[in-house]
């Protein structure tokens, strides 16, 4: 295919450091609402609010880039309201960056009778059964109205575990064609950054082709999509590793839907920069605290009399004591978890802080070129030093980039 004229971009990508062993990188990504430090985890504020936290509290966790879901905002409050209010930043009082997805994923996963044609996603209106169509142009127009700093192309999403190679190829090739339609429809390329989404399931050949096609379109950033759908972790790692090997060095790489701490650190080692997931905030509402020693379900009776902080040494506002810290104990979270929403708010703040702090220390270790040691430490903490408990896929994936966790 013929390369398209370079598209404008509303970001600057500055590579700060490279790990001398793995493919990990540290960078500064400057977006319309300020710089963010890569690698980065982005918490998900689905309906323009991060599950009970005020924008001020979210800011205090260190978050400078969060997600909104286009599908949800398209339904509530809707494009007309967003237009009148002046976009999602103004709606939620958020001074920092926002990334929106295309809405296609939720469309397919939440709506029955949605099917995908070349025109777009067809579905029956659940209200009155009228056949309706959501096209790449609709998705981009909506994201233009939302005004997010990073917008995503509408892609043809298929579960990676689908055995239908023919359908997978069709989805991959259609995603490329839809990218062209998205680029053509994008009204604010100097204010909003359109990211393409690499598809191709678990087929490395197809992923390779897709990378080639999409890199040629020269979008300001690149996402690897279709993962985190129940595929084997080893397959996931192979796909990420293959894609990052084919992507230009000077563009941010975003792996969609990833959020478990061990997935994050391994993906960084494989050369990915940005991640998002609802898990940290969702699990908080179930009373689960993420710590470096694993996830604690604070609703369990064993924590009823545990007067220690949620995580010893944690710097979040809940765990800190003195100087504005709240000194929240596990016993108190146990007391309110699933009974008062404050319990959810407290753990949401802790979990978001944990994820962001994890990525900050990953970044620092890359800059100081001690990321391999960081990885060893991380897995040792997570599994209490018991190497037999290390997940095989992580050991394997890291070996491929030069880190032997077992040594």
């Amino acid at each position, binding site marked *: 295919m013929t390369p398209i004229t370079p598209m404008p971009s509303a970001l600057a990508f500055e590579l700060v450091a490279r790990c001398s062993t793995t493919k990990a990188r540290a960078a500064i990504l400057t977006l319309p609402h300020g710089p963010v430090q890569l690698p980065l985890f982005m918490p998900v504020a689905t*309906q*323009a*609010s*991060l*599950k*009970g*936290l*005020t924008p*001020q*509290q979210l800011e205090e966790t260190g978050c400078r880039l969060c997600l909104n879901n286009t599908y*949800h905002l*398209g*339904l*509530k*409050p*809707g*494009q*007309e*309201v967003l237009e009148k*209010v002046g976009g999602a930043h*103004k709606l939620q*009082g958020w001074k920092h960056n926002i990334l929106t997805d295309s809405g296609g994923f939720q469309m397919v996963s*939440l*709506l*029955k009778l949605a099917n995908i044609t070349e025109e777009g*996603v*067809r579905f029956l*209106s*659940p*209200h*009155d059964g*009228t*056949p*309706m*169509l*959501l*096209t790449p142009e*609709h998705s981009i*127009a*909506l994201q233009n*109205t939302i005004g997010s700093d990073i917008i995503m192309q509408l892609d043809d999403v298929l579960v990676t575990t689908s055995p239908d190679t023919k359908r997978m190829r069709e989805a991959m090739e259609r995603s490329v064609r839809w990218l062209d339609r998205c680029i053509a429809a994008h009204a604010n390329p100097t204010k909003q950054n359109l990211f393409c989404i690499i598809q191709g399931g678990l087929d490395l050949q197809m992923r390779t082709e897709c990378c080639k096609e999409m890199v040629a379109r020269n979008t300001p950033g690149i996402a690897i999509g279709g993962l985190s759908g129940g595929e084997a972790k080893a397959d996931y790692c192979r796909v990420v590793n293959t894609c990052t090997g084919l992507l230009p060095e000077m563009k941010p790489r975003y792996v969609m839907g990833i959020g478990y701490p061990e997935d994050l650190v391994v993906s960084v080692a494989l050369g990915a920069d940005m991640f998002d997931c609802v898990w940290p905030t969702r699990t908080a509402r179930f009373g689960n605290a993420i710590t470096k020693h694993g996830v604690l379900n604070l609703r369990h009776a064993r924590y*009823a*009399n545990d*007067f220690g902080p949620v995580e010893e040494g944690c710097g979040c*506002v809940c765990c800190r004591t003195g100087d*504005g810290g*709240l*000194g*929240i*104990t596990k*016993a*108190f979270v*146990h*007391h*309110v978890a699933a*009974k*008062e*929403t*404050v319990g959810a*708010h407290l753990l949401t703040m802790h979990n978001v802080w944990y994820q962001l702090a994890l990525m900050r220390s990953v970044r620092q270790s890359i800059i100081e070129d001690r990321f391999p040691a960081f990885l060893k430490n991380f897995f040792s903490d997570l599994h209490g030093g018991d190497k037999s408990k290390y997940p095989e896929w992580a050991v394997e994936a890291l070996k491929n980039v030069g880190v032997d966790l077992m040594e």
Partner: protein
Amino acid sequence: MAASNGFPGAGRKIAFEILSHLDANVAGPRLGKLSIKGRHDVETPNFFAVTSRGVIPHLTPDVISSHTHIGGVHMALEDFVERAMGGTPPVVNCPGPSPLHTFTALPKSLPSLLAPRRTPAVSAPNGNSNSAISIFTSTGFQVLSNKSYISYVENLRPDIAISLADIPYGALPGTKRVAKMGDRTQEWLSQLINEKREEQVIFAPVLPIDYLDQSEYLNNIADEQADEVSGLALYDSNLLPDIPATTAITKLPRLSLDEPSSPRQILRQVSLGMDLFTVPFIGFATDAGIALTFRFPRPLPTGVAISNGVGALQLGVDMWPAVHATSVTPLDTSCSCYTCTSHHRAYVQHLLSAKEMLGWVLLQVHNHHILSEFFAAIRESISSGNFDADCEEFGRIYESELPEKSGQGPRVRGYHFKSEGPSEPKKNRPAWGNLGSDDQEASSKLVPDEPAAELEGKGFAEKMED
């Protein structure tokens, strides 16, 4: 004319100073200052926020510190002791000099007030006995004896503890029962006074029955226990004019547990000389999606008054209706709270309609702020001698009750209420429908529930030609 009930003994932790009172023998509004060692001073009249399981609903402690100016908090022992049957409740094991504060991560500056029961309390099926009352924990009804209440007070060290009162929530007590109420309450108070640590501050309950039926109990407080008791907690504010007007009793701070349902009722109680309040209607308004907008005695000059068309101003605005969907004005244009300075109606309306928890957080911050301002204005008015005229003006300008709620509140939990009969409607809508059933839940928030044309108008998708 300032009377002071200040730190007489070295062990005393509390002082109440009456700053202005026209005549101690005549009921009337008064200004005061409540000082508790280690906490901020509370200028009265003022209010203590109502908590549930030790938290002000929706507000994390950092939000309380940064965005509210409440006098203190009211906590209920029944919110902490569901594990008492099988051992010690965890709150008792909490280390530190003030376990209740530490356990609930309550900001250090805020005074804590411990009562046996929530306000409002759920009525218990079993009555109280000579030595114990019925309480309602998150796992069901329990018996709380005065002996264990005294030991909880001893262990939890709240800044103020209200002594156990024999109150039959629900049914009106008969004549025989009424006679017992005063006796039991007096007995329980005496036991608490005898066994408590010297520095523990105690408020004596005033029962919601006629003065004559509890005169013996109240006279006993006036004659024998006025030095041991640091305040009165009135379950019925109408008793205030009947309280013996001895100097010792008059100088005590008075807390209302009368659950006023409107600002007018607060004003009435202030005019009788009430000092401290719990105001459950703040939480009711928040959960109903209502932003309180009343000011005392009249709207601020910068405020845009909301009229219902008849002349009287509404006390609050229902934030559910779609008319707010594109309104980028604050909930109340004259308000300086976090919600009004950082957000607008469109956001709050969106959050309520999307059932996002933040909607109630923002309303709770705003509504507590409005009450803080209301009490500040009341103090100002008393101090300038205009209170009666201001009350009259307020009554003329504003409606008497809060607006009706139109939307759904957050989910109600089991310990918040108890069904009173078999035919009661469900308090919560079902959270989940069948996944993948043939009739896709059109009311679920995750699927569009508007007609296709409307969806198209929103730019969400387009209708297909046949």
